[in-house]
C-alpha cells in the first residue's frame, strides 16, 4: 500500500478544503490496500503560493489549490478562470489533457483533477449600484476590493480595483473605505462581509480553478492499480464536487436573500456586455502571454 502526503492552499476548516477532504476520503475508501492519501495540512506548513513548488521539488506528494496563484508562470490557468464548461466536459473534449501538459511543462507537476468547479465570482456592493440607460450597472469610479485575477475586468468596468489584505476588509467595509468587493458566492458569509455588502450583481462570472497536483516522480512510482484508483476518483469527484457545490450555492443564495441582500440582475444585452468584459479580460490575458495553447484551450473551455 502506497501513502501520499497532501496539503491544501486553504486552512483545513474552510469549505473548499472540506471538499478536498471528501476527495481524500473517496480515494482512501476505494484504495484500501493499494493507495492512501494522508491530508496533512494547509498554509501552516507551506505558504499557499509556494505549495506547487513544494510538490515539484518532492517535499510533499500532493497539493490542492487555485491554479491562478501560478498565473504568472503558467498563463494557461486563465483557461479555468475564464471557462464556461464543466470540468467533466473538458475532460471529455480534450481540454483537460492540454492543461495537464501545461502543468507539467510550466510548473513541473502532474495535474490529477480540476475539483470544485462551477463556483462563480460576484461583485458585491455596499450601496445600490447606479444603473446605465441600457440596464447595465455603472461602476465608474467605484472602489472595489479586488484580486489579481479580476483586476483587469474591474478596470474594464470603470471601477477602481483596490488591493486590501483580507483581515482589513471587514473594517474597510464597515467604514465604507471602499464601495464593494469581488468574491466567490460561497464563503461570503464565512467572513461576515454579507453584513455590509447588501447588493449583489448577477450574473456571476469566471469559475473556480482548484487543481489537485502530484509530484511526477511519485506518480511514476505508483502501481497501475494505484494510478487507476486516483484517476477514477478524480474524474468521479469532479462530478460529485460540482453537484455538492451547486447545492451549497443554492443554499447560500437563499440565505443571503433571506437576510435581505438585494440581487441586481442584469438581463439581455447588458448581461452579455458585462460577461463579455469579464471573460474577455481573462482570455485576453492568456493571449497576450503568448501561450501556444490559446486556441485549443479556448475551443475546449469556452462555449459562450
Amino acid at each position: 500500500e502506497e501513502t501520499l502526503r497532501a496539503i491544501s492552499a486553504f486552512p483545513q476548516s474552510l469549505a473548499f478544503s472540506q471538499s478536498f477532504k471528501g476527495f481524500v476520503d473517496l480515494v482512501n475508501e476505494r484504495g484500501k490496500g493499494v493507495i492512501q492519501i494522508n491530508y496533512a495540512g494547509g498554509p501552516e506548513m507551506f505558504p499557499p503560493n509556494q505549495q506547487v513548488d513544494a510538490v515539484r521539488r518532492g517535499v510533499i506528494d500532493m497539493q490542492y489549490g487555485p491554479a491562478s496563484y501560478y498565473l504568472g508562470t503558467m498563463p494557461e490557468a486563465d483557461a479555468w478562470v475564464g471557462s464556461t464548461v464543466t470540468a467533466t466536459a473538458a475532460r471529455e473534449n480534450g481540454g483537460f489533457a492540454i492543461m495537464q501538459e501545461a502543468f507539467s511543462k510550466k510548473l513541473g507537476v502532474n495535474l490529477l483533477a480540476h475539483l470544485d468547479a462551477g463556483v462563480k465570482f460576484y461583485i458585491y456592493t455596499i450601496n445600490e449600484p447606479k444603473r446605465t440607460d441600457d440596464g447595465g450597472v455603472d461602476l465608474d469610479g467605484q472602489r472595489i476590493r479586488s484580486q489579481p485575477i479580476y483586476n483587469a475586468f474591474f478596470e474594464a468596468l470603470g471601477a477602481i480595483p483596490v488591493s486590501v489584505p483580507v483581515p482589513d476588509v471587514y473594517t474597510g467595509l464597515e467604514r465604507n473605505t471602499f464601495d464593494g468587493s469581488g468574491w466567490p458566492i460561497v464563503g461570503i458569509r464565512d467572513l461576515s462581509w454579507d453584513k455590509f455588502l447588501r447588493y449583489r450583481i448577477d450574473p456571476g462570472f469566471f469559475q473556480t480553478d482548484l487543481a489537485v497536483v502530484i509530484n511526477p516522480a511519485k506518480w511514476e512510482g505508483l502501481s497501475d492499480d494505484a494510478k487507476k484508483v486516483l484517476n477514477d476518483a478524480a474524474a468521479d469527484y469532479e462530478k460529485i464536487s460540482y453537484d455538492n457545490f451547486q447545492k451549497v450555492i443554492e443554499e447560500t443564495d437563499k440565505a443571503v436573500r433571506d437576510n435581505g441582500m438585494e440581487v441586481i440582475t442584469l438581463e439581455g444585452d447588458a448581461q452579455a456586455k458585462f460577461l463579455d468584459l469579464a471573460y474577455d479580460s481573462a482570455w485576453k490575458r492568456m493571449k497576450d502571454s503568448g501561450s501556444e495553447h490559446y486556441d485549443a484551450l479556448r475551443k475546449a473551455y469556452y462555449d459562450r
Partner: protein
Amino acid sequence: MFLLRIYNLLILGLAALGAASLIFISVAIIIDVLLRNTGYRPFQSTSAIVEYVMLFSTMAAAPWLVRTNGHVAIYSFVGAMPDRARLLAGRAVLVLAILTLGLLCWRSAAVGLEMVQSRAVDMRSINIPSWVLYAMLSGGFGLMALEFLRLLLRGETYTGSGGAH
C-alpha cells in the same frame, strides 16, 4: 584597502537605502490613500512594492545590524561563563552563523537562478519576476555571513548588546 573601503560603504549605503525605502513606502501609502479618496485612480503597483520593500529593508539592514550588534541575542548565560569558555562559545557561534548564512545565500541564489530559467513570475497587485525576492535573500544572507566572518577575523565575538538608543 580600497576594496575594504568600498565594502564598508556598501554596508552603510544599503542600510541607508533600507531606511529610505521605509520613508518611501510611507509616502507611497499616503499618496495611494489620497488618490483613492479624491476620485483619482491609485497606482496598482503600490501594494506589491510596499510588500517587497518589507523584505528589502530587512535584508539591506541586516548586515549592518550584525556590525552594530543590533540582532537580539541572549547573552546572560554566556556572560556567566569563564573567559576561555566564553571566547570558545563566541567563536563557535560565529562559525555556525557563517555556515548557516553561507548555505542560505547559496541556495537562495540557486533557487533564484531556477526562477530566472523557468521565467517564474510572482503575481501580486502587479507582476514581478520571482527571482527578485531570492536575489534580496541571497544578497542579505551573503553580506550577513561576510559581517560575521569579519568579526571572526578581527578576533571579536558577537554580543547583541546594541540597544536602540
